[in-house]
């Protein structure tokens, strides 16, 4: 058991921290509202050159050969100043699918340029009816002579507005909610029949509604085995959830810190409001949830690489559910303790509040992950565990 950062990891955290302060302080997020894709390619390029995008990927695809703990440490720091570059959709969601299911050629063509920072990716997996079920897919991919033809509508594609390539889930067999029959394809937004409509989310990030009208792709664009995309998508969303927990941990620390500072500065009734016990105890409650959030995010960052998918799911579901409750609590109370100024767009605390909602809602919300946690074999096996019996 060891939770110490290595010297390399400490240096990495320091570098990301000073990068955030210099290149992307919280204020930058407001400026990005005017940007058509919501983030800047030159910053993304820098992140790629620094090795951050590829930190958790093996060297043969252009990564640094580290673990997702390293990626999590970076994402956590990016969360402290709400850096809007598409780390989660591009690296966590799309990167994990290509790494786990892509061919050598696909990795070379789509993964490596992304890890270098010259391109970015997205995953189109949500549909109007699908909620958190990855196999609830109506978009269809019909087999053609030498490939597939995709038709359907995807919603809330994170970085769909900025991506050079989009991984799309589409049904090659079975009915809407069958667990088998879903496949993954890499499409380019410029392909004939693809339309991308950008939407601005409440956290100032952008996403896209993407429609496919008879989009033709070759067989070389199929990722993984035909009809067997479920486990790749589950893995991808678990990476997304873990990244969300890491970012959420950064957000909680930032909100706790700005709230604590506000309590030591703001005066009412002739005293610093931080002397009032009701507010002190609320701030301590925020501290407790922040520490738990950090702890469970670390657990997910470690267990995401577990060979046993159920072990991974248990840790990720626990962490993501904790993010929903604890992260929600910290950011809501952050706004409350700031009073009126917390409800303005002028103050940063509202930006963190909004981003936390987005992170909670994505990749399985609290309710979804509680239900998944309770459906895993470990939930029942627990009944049989008794160290002193037998």
């Amino acid at each position: 058991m060891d939770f110490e950062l290595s010297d390399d990891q400490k240096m990495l955290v320091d570098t990301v921290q000073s990068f955030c302060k210099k290149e992307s302080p919280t204020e930058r997020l407001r400026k990005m509202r005017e940007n058509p894709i919501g983030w800047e390619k030159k910053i993304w390029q820098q992140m790629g050159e620094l090795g951050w995008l590829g930190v958790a990927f093996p060297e043969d695809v252009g990564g640094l050969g580290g673990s997702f703990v390293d990626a999590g440490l970076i994402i956590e720091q990016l969360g402290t100043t709400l850096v809007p570059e598409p780390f989660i959709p591009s690296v966590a969601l799309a990167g994990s699918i290509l790494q786990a299911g892509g061919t050598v050629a696909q990795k070379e063509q789509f993964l490596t340029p992304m890890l270098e920072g010259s391109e970015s990716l997205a995953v189109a997996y949500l549909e109007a009816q699908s909620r958190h079920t990855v196999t609830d897919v109506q978009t269809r991919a019909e087999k053609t002579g030498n490939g597939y033809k995709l038709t359907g509508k995807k919603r809330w594609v994170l970085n769909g507005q900025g991506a050079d390539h989009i991984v799309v889930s589409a049904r090659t067999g079975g009915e809407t909610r069958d667990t088998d029959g879903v496949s993954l394809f890499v499409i380019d937004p410029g392909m004939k029949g693809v339309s991308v409509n950008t939407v601005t989310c409440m956290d100032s990030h952008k996403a896209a509604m993407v429609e496919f009208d008879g989009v033709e792709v070759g067989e070389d664009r199929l990722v993984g085995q035909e009809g067997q995309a479920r486990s790749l998508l589950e893995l991808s969303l678990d990476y997304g959830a873990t990244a969300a927990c890491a970012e959420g941990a950064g957000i909680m620390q930032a909100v706790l810190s700005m709230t604590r500072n506000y309590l030591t500065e703001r005066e009412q009734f002739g005293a610093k409001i931080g002397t009032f016990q009701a507010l002190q105890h609320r701030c301590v409650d925020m501290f407790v949830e922040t520490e738990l959030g950090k702890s469970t995010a670390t657990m997910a960052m470690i267990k995401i690489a577990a060979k046993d998918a159920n072990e991974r799911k248990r840790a990720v579901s626990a962490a993501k559910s904790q993010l929903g409750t604890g992260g929600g609590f910290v950011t809501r109370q952050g706004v409350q303790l700031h009073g009126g100024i917390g409800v303005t767009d002028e103050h940063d605390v509202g930006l963190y509040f909004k981003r936390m909602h987005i992170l909670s809602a994505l990749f399985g919300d609290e309710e979804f992950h509680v239900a998944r946690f309770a459906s895993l074999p470990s939930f029942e096996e627990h009944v049989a565990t008794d160290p002193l019996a037998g």
Partner: protein
Amino acid sequence: MDMSFTPEQIAFRDEVRKGLREIMPERIRKKAELDQSFENEEVMEWHKALHTKGWSVPNWPKEHGGPGWDATQRFIFSEQLELGGAPALSPFGVSMVGPLIIQFGNDEQKKRFLPDIAAGTKVWCQGYSEPNSGSDLASLKTTAEKDSDGNYIVNGQKTWTTYAQYADWIFCLVRTNSQVKKQAGISFLLIDMKTDGVTAKPFLTSGNTYAFCETWFENAKVPKENLIGEENMGWTYAKALLGHERTMVAGVGISGRMLLRIKRMAKNTLRDGRPLLEDPTLRAKIARLEIKLEGLRMANYRALAGAQLGHAPGPESSILKLRGTEIQQECHDLAMEVMGHNSLSWFNEPGTVPPRQEAIPSNFNYVRAATIYAGSNEIQKNIISKLILGLPNG
């Protein structure tokens, strides 16, 4: 980063399990398996059994009879005991006065008191709180005045003295100087419960058991040899003790056992002819509590890994008591819910409710004390607010 135990630690855990099974008397094992409560004599019998293995004082250094385990081994040991439903040893000798004597006592005191604590042949209780000194402990008024021979004459009243009715000895904070700042006039005295003028009277607790007492001192004469360290330094010693074993206070094993118990009960309880555990609403409730416990366990692991490296307790360790005791209470709340109408009564005729359920209604009441004792959770929040968040004093 790594959150798994090493192969050596896993082997240690297995050795602990095997050892515990070997020494556990049959009568205790049967009760443990069914999650039943233990009488004081059973706790002491178990203490003596652990002593035969050299495992009764896991947190003591080897020279005083401890097994010489590191922080992680102590955690593993304690968690296995808790998960197995074994009787919890009285903490007052093993975890409180023992380590305090080791740290601040003289050689004579170590020789005189430590072997009996380790062997479980003397029972200790704690004399800190008074009727008017609860959270404001330093305001305590029990006095110890020196007589002409330099011995102490103790007068006053202590309260919440848990298991004083079984105790041979009590360790007390007493006022030896009332002319100085309240913390600076307190001394640490060891008092034989058989001393003339010492009387303990148990309270009937809300759990319908006799757990803690009121203890009176009327001109009780205490030999000067029973003073720990220097006079008027008692507050400093007591505070130093609070820093001990911060990684154990979360009780993740205790709550883990309770969750296991809740699931077992829910599996064996029917609703509309189906096991209650299959009900998605209840499953979600249990899952939410288990997830909370997973978070606490991770925070505990972080604290433990720090302690293993000899680091001072980090911020994560300050939440362990706070969140750990809340979870213990929530476990009992949920257990009562699963019991349904079986939760209406207690101390029933055998066979009235399943054996695994028997102790729960009483514990549901007594576990309220968990967020009150050892510094109430509100006091814990005051401490975190000041020491960790640096919020200003009022």
